[in-house]
């Protein structure tokens, strides 16, 4: 029997089943819950590794189930899917360890980990979707599964944050649904195809296609926090730190950005999109979001809010790379999907460590904190330098290819945006680093939880150090096979050069 079609299903199931089991566990079954979580995460990681190896050797992973006449649920692992799946699987594993440490002793952990696993399931589903219909299904599931995590703490502020989140995302979901159904009624297919499937439509549908493009991008732009649809992201920071880390640095915002990549490349196709004249405005909007997010970040004193606005800015690099619509810029945008995830999750982990260990939430409280927590702040520093674009950290690679791509596509204004944004990144990250490393620490911290000789619990310390090492590693070793950059090149090649 050929097992290949079942592997993508198993990848989805490896977080779904533990999640459902965890829901039914009593609160005090800590060990069993931890085992289930880690087992699922390791199995998923192993399966993803298997798929990567398989695709390299020419295997084809695809599962189809008919849902309605003409509509199928399709899970398929291509290079682009695999890039996102690998990122999600790796970061789920790391974040699970972090969350176990972070939530130790706090209430409702079964519910938390249950929904957490559902979120990862939805993210992996988004990544593996082989058509827009399947994508929509998992995309909405992600909205639903994230809501309980945002309101997890059950306070009035959490409820407000959750409400804002829902208003934005459900509205976006409705636009996406409208665009998808409309597209389906025109083309009769929703299958993701390299270089798109809409080019066969005649010129009389041009206006309709432009509106569909706007609808889809608006629906996806909500999750990708594209200006002016970004308002939910800073508010959703009321969620516990692991949620902010995985969901708002990786899963949710990336699902939006990934969707935009899909729409531009595999629904419309770059050429059709460019000839419709929709990529240039998208690039302009992304560029504006980059600058705007950075500017807003400078004025935040709350650490998580500053990081949230930084996310707003950084995710738009991906969109910018996509919308420049040239092969090299595509590499930059796609690779940033991974790079930004690694760097931003590091930063959020560190912010969580500060909050959990010393109850520091504000940047103004961070004077000299590096002396108390050197490892945490070292990881933070790598993440921050990476965001600014200091070589050889991952962020530099993304910006380098974005810049080259812009020159190749003769869009010189992008260079200005990149430079300006890098300066702004420096303007909001360097003061934090300066405070942490060079200012005198205060006589006492807001609170100081003692962890013996370690600066904090190992489960909290290990994840940021690992992800920081990855952020450094993917930059240093970018030209090795299987590095994110090499995958991104493969994806760009498939989109632009394959016959």
């Amino acid at each position, binding site marked *: 029997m050929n097992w290949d079609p079942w592997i993508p299903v198993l990848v989805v199931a490896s977080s779904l089943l533990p999640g459902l089991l965890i*829901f039914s566990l009593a609160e005090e079954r800590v060990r069993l819950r931890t085992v289930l979580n880690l087992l699922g995460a390791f199995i998923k990681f192993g399966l993803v590794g298997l798929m990567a190896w398989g695709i390299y050797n020419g295997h084809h992973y695809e599962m189809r189930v008919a849902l*309605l006449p003409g509509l199928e649920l399709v899970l398929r692992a291509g290079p682009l899917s695999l890039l996102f799946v690998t990122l999600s699987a790796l970061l789920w594993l790391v974040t699970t360890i972090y969350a176990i440490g972070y939530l130790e002793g706090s209430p409702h952990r079964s519910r938390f980990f249950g929904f957490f696993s559902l979120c990862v399931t939805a993210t992996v589903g988004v990544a593996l979707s082989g058509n827009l219909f399947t994508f*929509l299904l998992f995309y909405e599931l992600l909205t*639903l599964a994230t809501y309980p995590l945002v309101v997890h703490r059950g306070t*009035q502020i*959490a409820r407000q944050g959750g409400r804002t989140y829902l208003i934005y995302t459900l509205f976006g979901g409705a636009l996406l649904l*409208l665009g998808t159904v*409309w597209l389906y009624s025109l083309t009769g297919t929703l299958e993701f195809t390299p270089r798109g499937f809409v080019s066969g439509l005649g010129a009389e549908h041009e206006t309709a296609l432009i509106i569909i493009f706007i609808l889809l991008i608006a629906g996806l732009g909500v999750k990708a926090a594209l200006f002016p649809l970004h308002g939910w992201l800073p508010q959703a920071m009321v969620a516990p730190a692991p949620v902010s880390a995985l969901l708002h640095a990786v899963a949710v915002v990336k699902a939006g950005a990934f969707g935009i990549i899909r729409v531009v490349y595999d629904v419309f196709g770059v050429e059709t999109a460019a000839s419709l004249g929709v990529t240039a405005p998208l690039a302009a909007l992304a560029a504006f979001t980059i600058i705007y997010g950075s500017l807003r970040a400078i004025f935040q004193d709350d650490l998580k809010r500053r990081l949230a606005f930084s996310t707003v800015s950084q995710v738009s690099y991906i969109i910018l790379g996509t919308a420049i619509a040239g092969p090299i810029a595509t590499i930059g945008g796609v690779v940033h999907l991974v790079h930004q995830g690694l760097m931003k999750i590091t930063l959020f982990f560190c912010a969580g460590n500060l909050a959990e260990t010393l109850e520091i939430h504000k940047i103004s409280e961070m004077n000299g904190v590096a002396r108390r927590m050197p490892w945490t702040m070292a990881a933070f520093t790598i993440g921050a330098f990476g965001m600014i674009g200091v070589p050889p950290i991952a962020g530099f690679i993304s910006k380098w290819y974005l810049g080259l791509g812009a020159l190749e596509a003769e869009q010189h204004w992008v260079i200005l945006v990149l430079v300006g944004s890098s300066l702004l990144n420096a303007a909001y990250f360097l003061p934090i680093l300066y405070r942490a490393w060079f200012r005198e620490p205060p006589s006492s911290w807001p609170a100081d939880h003692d962890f013996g000789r370690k600066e904090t619990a190992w489960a909290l310390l290990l994840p940021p150090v690992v992800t920081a090492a990855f952020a450094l590693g993917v930059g240093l070793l970018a030209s090795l096979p299987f590095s994110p950059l090499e995958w991104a090149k493969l994806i760009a090649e498939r989109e632009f050069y394959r016959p």
Partner: protein
Amino acid sequence: MLALLTDIPWAIVLILLPLTAGMVSFVFPRLAKGLSLGTVLITVLAVAGLGWQLHYIYGGTYQHAIGGWGAPLGIDLHADGLSLLMLTLTALVALGVSVYSSVYFTREQAIRFWPVWLFLLAALNALFLAADIFNLYVTLELLGLSAVTLTALLGGKAALDGAMRYLLATLLGSLSYLLGVALLYHSYGSVDIAILAARVEATPAVWAALGLMGAGLMLKTALFPLHFWLPRAHASASAPVSAVLSALAVKASFYILLRLWLAIFSPLAESAASLLGVLGAVAILWGSLQALRQTRLKLLIAYSTVAQIGYLFLAFPLAVATAMPAWNAAAYLALSHALAKSAMFMVAGNLLRFGSHDRIADLDRVVQRLPLTASAFALAGVSIMGLPPSGGFIGKWLLLETALGQGRWDLAAVMLIGGLLAAGYVFKVLGHAFTEASVTHVAGAVPRTMEWAAFLLALAAVLLGLLAAPVLSWFDLSEVAGMQGVSP
């Protein structure tokens, strides 16, 4: 053994069994609970058996002349894909409601509940199997009266007030319908649907009959603006009864309307289709807005029913051009709404039992304290909002696809706005269920059976979304819709 099972006339079992069981349990109240649960279980089997017979023996349509007297003299039973759909929906909800009721009522209430509930079940099954418009009237009246009795079951001012409104509305509706029946009988000398379908022409009498029957059925279905009786009646009844009323009772009159429309009236009145569509659209918006405004959970759920009924009527104008996807959408919406809404009313019953109130703002951390009930509400809500992967989503997708295919942007916009408003009222409840209320209250015990009944119904509504292909081919509506004379 298998041959025996396939030979049983399941359609007759579906009518006679609950009727007999109802009478027996009226006489021997001590047997009532066991008898009813057994009856409902057999009903589920009987529907499955009938479905099997329809598919593999009768080739889609089943016709049975009781006592060998065929129409126009005798009474015929008729079953096809549409009947099967409604019977299945009834059996599933009835199973959930019966399990729920077996622990919900006090001994005193239960004595009165079971016989009436079984009569209601018999009426519903007979209604979905009736082949002529007079039998439809008889079963509709039996249904209405037993439903009113169940509404008044709890006693007290609110219940009696709600039941009284319901009684007046349902009598008025039946009367109007009966007048229409009389007109048609007078003009064409038959009440058999098939015979009428062959004979009717666009005469003033037929128009009057259409108007009278349509208005009566719309009143009973609670289509805007004739929905005024529904929120009070549904909100004041006990939880399992509200579930039955919202999930099944309104669907029965909708079924008659749909049946008459497909068989008799649709060739005559395309303009009526667009009127129904407009009323449906207004119902969606008005019902959802009202639901959003409510502060009591049961009223919120009741107004949500007003809105959801609106979706069913959007299929009428869309089916004029492309019949099949539109009727499939309506079927799917009806099925998933029945499951989801009965689950929601059961959740309301659980919460009422838990906190002795249903004020939404004071739902005190229900998510933590009754996780199963809260997840039942959430799952049912997913289907009501029409989010994937629920049955409601499939229905909405099909409807939206049809609307966009015909360029009906107005209807598409209404559907999307309705979905967003539904999300508004569902998450309003869920948000409060997560947070601590200012007033804490002593928690009453909620039996696990009640929690599981609600949860499983809600889960079924969601899983329905993943089974669209087999479900749609099992309830094959193409032949029923084919009577309309417009093929897709």
